[in-house]
């Protein structure tokens, strides 16, 4: 292993390896920042460009992209209330309120530090876990996937923003949207209403672009002025405050990284759930849960740490069984195959240096991306002072191109605009958007794995409780649902005792 790492370091320093890594990082940042464009699109567009270069150089390029994308996506999430990539959706929750308060610099600093440290942790965890990767993957069967999805859905409870009923309604509609399209279990197409676009269901990314970017455009158009409510604070807010905050909240960082790496390793559930889980656990264990959603810096650290750590985690199923842990990994597998490598355990045996090169470059890129951005963070924060009339057409143009580039489909662009209207109406009528998004992400995973569990267990419901890991996850679900309630009771008891004395 160490030998392979040495080879990779050698390749990185020699023959322009570092240049590929740097280019990859820049591309990753740009693709992360533009809503709609994310890891899968960036890698897919780059595949043909890697034909001419050797496999190690291609790994530097791909690793640079994978390491930089998650942080790039947080920049727009924080500054413009628009997650650049899906997993950054959790970051808007506290990142944007910080921006409104004029603390964009600190938020960017925190996101950058959390991303780089999270990325490093993720790779470190991957190194440690690699010997038992197969065992870990084999522990997760459909009952565990289902429980994990339910655990992710519990994050809805903390994202309803004090509007529980409306949050639950939004979540139900999110699930209903998730069920549209081809049903993998029965082979039937559901709720397509004769529109062939819907055979594949409603694509998440265009929907996200609509719900956040376009809805935000409409809000900005109507509000006018500039994004920051408190312009004088923008110049005062210090990037270094954010960086130090990450060390102050090291527990949040560590927890986020572990959640990211572990959940990232579970195929199909992936990074977005990790980010939401990391966020909701942080809220639930915080002494001051009410401060979240209003610009608590921990709410930026938690999802961003897990976002970058997941890159390491999602390599686990790929290396252990040749199965993609995420959409991005699926494209990456394609890249490997086109370079004549068979994904799966044989990679570790025959091409260890290729993998160490990838891991090394992901780790370096997550740090590098943050440094690049920190260098311009103060200038970036000034965006929040710009007259929104300039921002509106720019964000709209870029978002729609992003929606198109995902699958080269104008239908996706139309979906983005439709969801823009839905997103705006949700703001207008006071329905929280995150429950809708979480449910859209998890609906299919939850349903498919529930039905598979039932088939495997021949209809025996206890399958979720008799398998040890599933039982643990079930208890976590119960715990996460009861924490707010227990807290409420404790607070009431304390209050009544205080009233007595």
């Amino acid at each position, binding site marked *: 292993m160490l030998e392979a790492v040495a080879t990779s370091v050698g390749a990185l320093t020699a023959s322009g390896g570092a240049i590929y890594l740097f280019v990859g990082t820049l591309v990753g940042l740009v693709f992360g920042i533009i809503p709609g464009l994310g890891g*899968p699109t960036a890698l*897919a567009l780059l*595949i*043909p460009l890697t*034909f001419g270069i050797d496999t190690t150089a291609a790994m530097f390029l791909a690793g640079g992209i994978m390491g930089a994308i998650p942080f790039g996506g947080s920049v727009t999430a924080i500054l413009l209330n628009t997650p650049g990539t899906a997993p950054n959706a959790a970051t808007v929750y506290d990142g944007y309120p910080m921006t409104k308060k004029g603390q964009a610099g600190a938020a960017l600093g925190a996101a950058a530090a959390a991303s780089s440290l999270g990325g490093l942790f993720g790779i470190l965890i991957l190194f440690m876990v690699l010997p038992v990767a*197969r065992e870990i*993957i*084999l522990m*997760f*069967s*459909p009952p565990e996937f289902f429980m994990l999805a339910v655990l992710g859905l519990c994050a809805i409870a903390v994202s309803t923003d004090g509007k529980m009923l409306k949050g639950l309604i939004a979540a139900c509609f999110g699930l209903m949207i998730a069920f549209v*399209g*081809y049903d*993998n*279990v*029965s*082979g039937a*197409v559901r709720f397509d209403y004769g529109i*062939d*676009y*819907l*055979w*594949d*269901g409603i694509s998440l990314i265009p929907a996200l672009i609509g719900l956040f970017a376009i809805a935000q455009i409409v809000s900005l158009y109507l509000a006018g002025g500039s994004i920051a409510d408190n312009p004088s604070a923008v110049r005062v807010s210090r990037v270094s405050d954010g960086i130090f905050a990450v060390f102050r909240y090291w527990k949040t960082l560590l927890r986020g990284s572990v959640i990211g790496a572990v959940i990232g390793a579970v*195929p*199909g559930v992936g990074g977005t759930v990790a980010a939401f889980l990391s966020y909701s656990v942080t809220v639930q264990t915080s002494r001051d849960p009410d401060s979240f959603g209003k610009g608590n810096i921990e709410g930026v650290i938690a999802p961003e740490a897990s976002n970058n750590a997941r890159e390491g985690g999602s390599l686990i199923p790929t290396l252990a*069984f*040749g*199965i*993609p842990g995420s*959409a991005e*990994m*699926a*494209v*990456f*597998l*394609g890249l490997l*195959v*086109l370079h*004549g*490598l*068979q*994904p*799966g*355990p*044989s990679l570790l*045996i025959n091409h260890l240096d290729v993998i160490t090169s990838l891991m090394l470059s992901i780790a370096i890129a997550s740090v590098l991306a943050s440094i690049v951005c920190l260098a311009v963070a103060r200038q970036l924060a000034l965006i929040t002072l710009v007259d929104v009339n300039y921002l509106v057409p720019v964000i709209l143009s870029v978002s729609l191109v992003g929606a198109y580039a995902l*699958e*080269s*489909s104008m239908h996706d662009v139309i979906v983005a605009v439709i969801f823009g209207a839905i997103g705006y109406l949700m703001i207008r009528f006071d329905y929280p958007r995150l429950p809708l998004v979480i449910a859209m992400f998890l609906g299919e995973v939850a349903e*498919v*794995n529930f*039905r*598979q569990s039932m*088939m*495997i267990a*021949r209809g025996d419901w206890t399958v979720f409780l008799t398998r040890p890991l599933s039982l643990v996850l079930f208890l976590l679900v119960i715990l996460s649902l009861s924490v707010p309630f227990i807290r409420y009771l404790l607070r009431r008891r304390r209050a009544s005792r205080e009233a007595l004395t």
Partner: protein
Amino acid sequence: MMKRALGLAAAAAMALAAGQAAAQDWPKGDVQLIIPSGPGGGFDTYARVLARAMEEDLDVKVVPQNVTGGGGLRGATVAYQAKPDGQTFAVFNVPGIIEPVINGESVAYDVSEIDWLGAMAFNQYVVVVGKDSPYDTIEDMKAAGEPITFTAYGSSGVAANRILCAEVGLECEIITGYPSNSEALLGVVRGDAIASVPPISTATAFNAKGDLKAILLMTERETPEFPDTEKAADAGYANLANLGLIRAFGLPPGVPAETRAAVQAAFDKALEAESVKTWAEDTGSAFEAMSGDELSALIESQTELLTRYKDVIAGN
């Protein structure tokens, strides 16, 4: 006389020029290659390998475009309805596009109208179980006295699975919903079910660590990856050796003959390319170039076969 000869020569020259003009008509710009499944899967990989090989000889790009949905039907529909100018062609999942037709579902394409260019491989199936499974043969399974569980991916996988069970007379329960063949195999390794029926090449790629045991090869061909496994014909189920997954390429109906010839020439040349051969060898992927006519014949025999199993495929 002289005049006539001159006339002929002129006519010939004009025809030649016209031919060249037509040949230069294609490609008019980047060529789209529609892939009816997501990036990373089998069809995607074959298509991208082909696209890369075609680009080597053309001045334009061959852009792979994943059109997912409906278990591959959306991609097939989009490809079939594409403008017939040779700028768009597609990889088709056969028998994936035949099954809904046989099941009597309404589809927006006519398989016999697709203008076939050829195919890159005919992947046949193998029955596998976990390496520690007590079952070594189909007969063992039949003797088990209880239904055998299978994991399956996609409509073609389920169909092959059902045909297997019907043909050998095995009571089966099929667990569907896996997102890929590899994940169906992972399901077998972790114990979701006893067995699975993946394409041989997928099973080979997955089995680098020997997690699986092959118990029946549904092919007549030599299979060095599973040298000791019994073949369907030897086990008395010769019919099973006809099933397979074809990586077929075709144009939408109505492409003008000259353009079509140019596309065909580029396609054939790509199949000969060194990069395709090296890729197949390096990754152990099945590669067996097939002409459009061979492909049409194979599709016809597959259709006949599947029609015979119509009720079985429908799960009755």
